[in-house]
């Protein structure tokens, strides 16, 4: 369930910019390190814990904002309208930079983080011996994921920026031509991904301690994302997050099915439902186009020209 926090970051960037963000794990690491180091510093200086937490989170948010701006300005910005694979490769580059920079600035040891309770409840102990062990951290994680998903759904569906984000995901060029400021949009996307990474870092940092191996979480979250491990988030969000399930089937068929489902669910309740499931589902219809992996088929051969020539 906690993986869904990391997986959200992937989905977010993919949904909003069509880029598969390999750097999500590194962003979790950076956010976690920024948080835990500033927190420790404040506590060591003698501030009360709540002030330290507020300062630490504020500091981490600022760091993620700077990172988002830098990434947009120097990496993704110059690569606008490039091939999906090129953007993917550039996020690999960003991963290396972030991993190196984060550890160089904030240190590379394992730092314990204590924001959430890590002990467990034993439910129904009176009904049968042993009861059911429920990890409090899992509950917190699920709660946070639920709030996050709901908030993001509203953001994507209801706000102007959210609509612009979806437009950019569909087609960079078309979005630019109708006057959407693409650099601002991408900054927002990376910032939101950074904030999601920060949230993931608070939970995972409590579980594992903030350390380098936290970056591998991202890779582990990926299968979860695809198989649909989201399903354990309770309540209405379960329905919404089922959107992560269709990719389990063959992408092309799921895509068309899903598009049809989206069209048919245009009632008021359905809209919210679809909005939430949107977060999980864009992958299925984005890969739908023929096989070339792009939505605009006419340009599919262009990336290979240089190789066939040599």
């Amino acid at each position: 369930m906690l993986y869904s926090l990391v997986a959200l970051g992937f989905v977010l960037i993919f949904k909003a910019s069509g880029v598969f963000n390999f750097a999500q794990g590194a962003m979790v690491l950076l956010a976690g390190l920024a948080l835990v180091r500033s927190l420790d510093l404040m506590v060591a200086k003698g501030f009360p814990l709540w002030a330290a937490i507020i300062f630490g989170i504020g500091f981490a948010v600022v760091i993620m904002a700077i990172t988002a701006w830098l990434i947009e300005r120097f990496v993704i910005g110059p690569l606008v309208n490039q091939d999906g694979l090129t953007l993917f490769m550039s996020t690999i580059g960003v991963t290396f930079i972030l991993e190196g920079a984060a550890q160089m600035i904030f240190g590379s040891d394992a730092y314990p983080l204590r924001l959430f309770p890590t002990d467990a409840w034993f439910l129904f102990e009176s009904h049968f011996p042993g009861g059911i062990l429920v990890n409090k951290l899992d509950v917190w994680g699920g709660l946070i994921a639920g709030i996050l998903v709901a908030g993001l759904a509203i953001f994507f569906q209801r706000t102007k920026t959210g609509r612009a984000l979806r437009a950019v995901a569909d087609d960079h060029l078309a979005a630019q031509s109708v006057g959407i400021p693409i650099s601002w949009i991408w900054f927002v996307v990376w910032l939101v991904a950074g904030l999601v990474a920060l949230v993931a870092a608070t939970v995972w940092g409590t579980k594992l301690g903030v350390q380098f191996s936290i970056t591998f979480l991202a890779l582990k979250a990926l299968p979860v994302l695809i198989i649909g491990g989201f399903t354990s988030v309770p309540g209405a969000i379960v329905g919404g997050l089922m959107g992560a399930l269709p990719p389990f089937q063959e992408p092309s068929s799921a895509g068309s099915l899903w598009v049809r489902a989206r069209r048919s669910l245009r009632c008021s309740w359905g809209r919210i439902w679809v909005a939430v499931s949107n977060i999980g589902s864009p992958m299925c219809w984005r890969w739908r186009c023929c096989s070339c992996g792009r939505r605009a088929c006419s340009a599919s051969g262009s990336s290979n020209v240089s190789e066939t020539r040599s």
Partner: protein
Amino acid sequence: MLYREAGQFKTTYAEDMAIFPIRQDRIALAILLGIAFIGVPLLATFHIWPFGSDYLLRAILLPFLILALAAIGVNILVGYCGQISLGSGAFMAIGAYSAYKLGTGVHIPLAWLGFAISIPPLPVLSSILLGGLTAAVAGILFGVPSLRIKGLYLAVATLAAQFFFDWVFLRVPWFTNYAPSGSVNAPALNFFGLVLDTPIERYLLCLIFVTVFAVLAKNLVRGNLGRQWMAIRDMDIAAELIGIRPLNAKLTAFGLGSIMGSLVGAAFILILPIVLNLIPTQLGVPLSTETITHLEFIIFGSLICYLLIKEPHGFARLISLGKEKLRLWPFPY
């Protein structure tokens, strides 16, 4: 002027189909191979600059060759066949561990059948090659999902190989010959009675492997199989329609890619010495190993981003551009 094809007539089909149809290319390649096979060993044996110490050879040239082999394998799979794979590391591990196991002897106790399969320790060369075969089988096995899924989904499916083999080699003590620490010591590199222990001998060994496989890959890519791969990459449905069987094309790519990966793994375990701590002292920079590692990350990442922005098609594109420019040089057209 220098790079002009004028006057080089192709009079036979064989000449027309040659790997390097331009004479200047052949000369350049011959010079390069000459430097690599004769020049470097000569300089290294007499310790002439820049081979004053083993550092350049051990810390730069050996990893360079080994990683070049890895890049060829990934290039076949991802670049030519278009199958995005994140499992190359797993195939390297398979190559490394199977070369190690075959090199130290395989013993599979089959107690419930009442006998055991025992293979005596094999010579290094055959254990490396057999390790390659093992990796090919594993690669084909984990390449099967590519027949049904593509793109990001395939990348995740191949990631499964990575996690699976990581887990297997850590958890099953049989693979490490029950070593308590889980790490293995490679057997000596013994080729037909000739023990390769100096860096220059290992360099030559790697160079031979890289050359053989580069020639192999270049020829495969030019040939029938390579055309099938490229057709699958460009559009798999169209490729199927013109009669290319995705099963064959994709699985051969996976098999070959993992063979090369496994060779790299074997090379890593058998050849590559630990050189990490050498770097700061060699450069004379008062930095800790840790900082250097992080700096390396940053520089590496920045290079990727810079190159992607400046030249999204990489050095290969720069070279082909350079060739075209050279053809006209010094006249503008």
